[in-house]
């Protein structure tokens, strides 16, 4: 193999991209440790873990979804819905675990709605999930009625989002478990491989007998489910059920996934990359807060980051085309 071919292989492997964003993460950590007091403290690190769990969990599913070439703009609304459902059920004296299950299933239902709109009704994913975002948000408001918040929840409610197992935050265990599961999915599962095929060359996928309709449906349902779980965890951490959360959540997730090296057009994805990307997004949010920057400045930064992430991806691809075979 010639030297040029070797170079192409190197670029294309996820390792290159992952190392790059890992360095980026470290840079941010260092910057914030300097400019923000208390950033590198134990409490804050626990905070980071707790707040990164939402984009991580949802991002894991969205990674596969985007690798297949699809998108979901409704995860913020799903987050709100499940957080509200979780709180309301517990407030109504239903025990924690069944309430949690139902809240997560609410998310599954949202994913199911999306799969119907995109796959059965064949509406463009952007429009379909934009519409469902509004529908789900509306349903959330309807269920909440006049209440903006649901408070007065028992101690046990907070365990999911704030509990510990010994010295270790429970949320870290959740993150590790899910990341391991999804990493295994990435390496070994047909779901992942077929999603890459669908995103990379849809007609080849169909000709190979892949059930595109089935796979994409599963991906949307999976996304909804994990967004639902994230919502329940968020409600637990804040110890309140809110109908007004989740705005901008889909942006965070998409940025995390794109930063992690998943291509917007499909055909590529990286679970570890998404985790690093989610950490970056979370750290940016927390770091800026601690440095005294009002949260709305972050909108601008995130918007710019989104565009930069795609530019970087395009740039790497363009370089590849010059070096690679054809």
């Amino acid at each position: 193999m010639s030297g040029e071919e070797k170079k192409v292989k190197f670029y294309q492997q996820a390792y290159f991209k992952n190392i790059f964003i890992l360095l980026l993460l470290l840079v941010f950590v260092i910057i914030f440790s300097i400019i923000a007091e208390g950033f590198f403290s134990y409490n804050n690190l626990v905070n980071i873990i707790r707040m990164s769990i939402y984009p991580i969990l949802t991002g894991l599913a969205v990674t596969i979804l985007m690798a297949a070439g699809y998108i979901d703009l409704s995860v913020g609304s799903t987050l709100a819905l499940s957080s509200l459902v979780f709180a309301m059920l517990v407030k109504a004296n239903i025990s924690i675990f069944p309430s949690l299950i139902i809240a997560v299933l609410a998310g599954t239902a949202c994913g199911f709605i999306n799969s119907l709109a995109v796959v059965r009704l064949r509406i463009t994913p952007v429009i379909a999930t934009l519409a469902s975002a509004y529908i789900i948000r509306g349903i959330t408001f309807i269920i909440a009625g006049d209440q903006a918040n649901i408070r007065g929840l028992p101690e046990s409610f907070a365990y999911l989002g704030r509990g510990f197992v010994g010295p270790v935050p429970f949320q870290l265990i959740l993150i590790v478990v899910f990341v391991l599961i999804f990493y295994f999915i990435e390496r070994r599962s047909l779901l992942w491989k077929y999603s890459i095929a669908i995103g990379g060359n849809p007609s080849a996928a169909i000709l190979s007998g892949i059930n595109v309709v089935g796979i994409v449906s599963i991906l949307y349902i999976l996304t909804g489910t994990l967004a639902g779980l994230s919502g329940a965890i968020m409600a637990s951490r804040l110890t309140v059920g809110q109908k007004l959360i989740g705005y901008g959540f889909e942006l965070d997730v998409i940025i995390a996934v794109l930063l992690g090296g998943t291509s917007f057009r499909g055909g590529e994805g990286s679970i570890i990359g998404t985790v690093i990307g989610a950490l970056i997004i979370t750290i940016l949010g927390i770091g800026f807060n601690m440095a005294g920057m009002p949260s709305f400045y972050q909108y601008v930064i995130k918007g710019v980051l989104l565009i930069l992430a795609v530019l970087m991806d395009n740039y790497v691809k363009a370089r590849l085309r010059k070096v690679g075979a054809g």
Partner: protein
Amino acid sequence: MSSKNVNTELKTRKLNETLLQNLVTLGILVLISVIITALIPRFLTYTNINNVLLQISLIIIVGSGITLLMISGNFDLSVGGVLALAGVLFAFLSRAGVPTFFALILSVIFGSLMGALNGTLVVNLKISPIIVTLGTMYITRGLALIFANGSMISSGLPGDFRKLSNTYFGPMSLVIMIVIAVVIIFIFIQSKTNLGQYAFFIGSNRETARLSGINIGRTVSILYILVGTLAGLSGVILASKLGTGDSSVGDGFEFDVIVAAVIGGTSVAGGKGSISGMVLGAMILGVLNNSLNLLGVASYYQLVIKGLVLIGAIVLQRYIVEKFS
């Protein structure tokens, strides 16, 4: 064949398809209005209709540009953010002492610049319109919040800040006149200019457009600039009406505009659409919202209904197209 014959034949044929579509949309509008008037006679009063018209006036203004953009196969999700930012800038500049008229012009121009930014990112850097305008949506929203310090600029504004929305020529408000002017201009662009025709070409078959020598990049850039300008214009109109530069306005505005366009027959995939249809679509949307308000239905039901209406409109459109080929 004499050219007079050509004219009349032309008119009858071309009007058929769009006319048919618009008649259907009009029919739906009339139907809803009739039902509502039967349930709540208060609907058909002057003040109420005026209310509806003012509410949808901004949607119609921006929708005119968005319709053309969607015909060419592109999107702009940032119009809500640009709307807010233009309004905030208008207030900001006015408060800082810039004469109101110039503050107005500058804010509108700022909208054009945002449009140019969108266009550059989509055309020159070849980034997907969804990502670009999702990004600029947040950037503009963030900037609006920054300039308004998290809420709104309502004090220290000159006396003539509200002049734009308070000017009347007889019974007709200046705003309504602007809306009508914009609609007429854009219908003209759509059906009588090369630019409009290029939008149809690009949306209908991009590759053919390329091979036919159409400068796709230039056309799409112009369309984005137009949308940005209209969003800026709407932003200052709204700020003028509210009397403040409010950074929280326009949430969901991009969605309303898309719904209006789609109900009016604009295809999400490009190649099809009409501004007259979008106007009717905006009216249906406005009447729907208004009816729900009058019936005392909580505003959040409107979110659900809007989403369902969008999906329904798209599916219905496709069904009709398939039926007629």
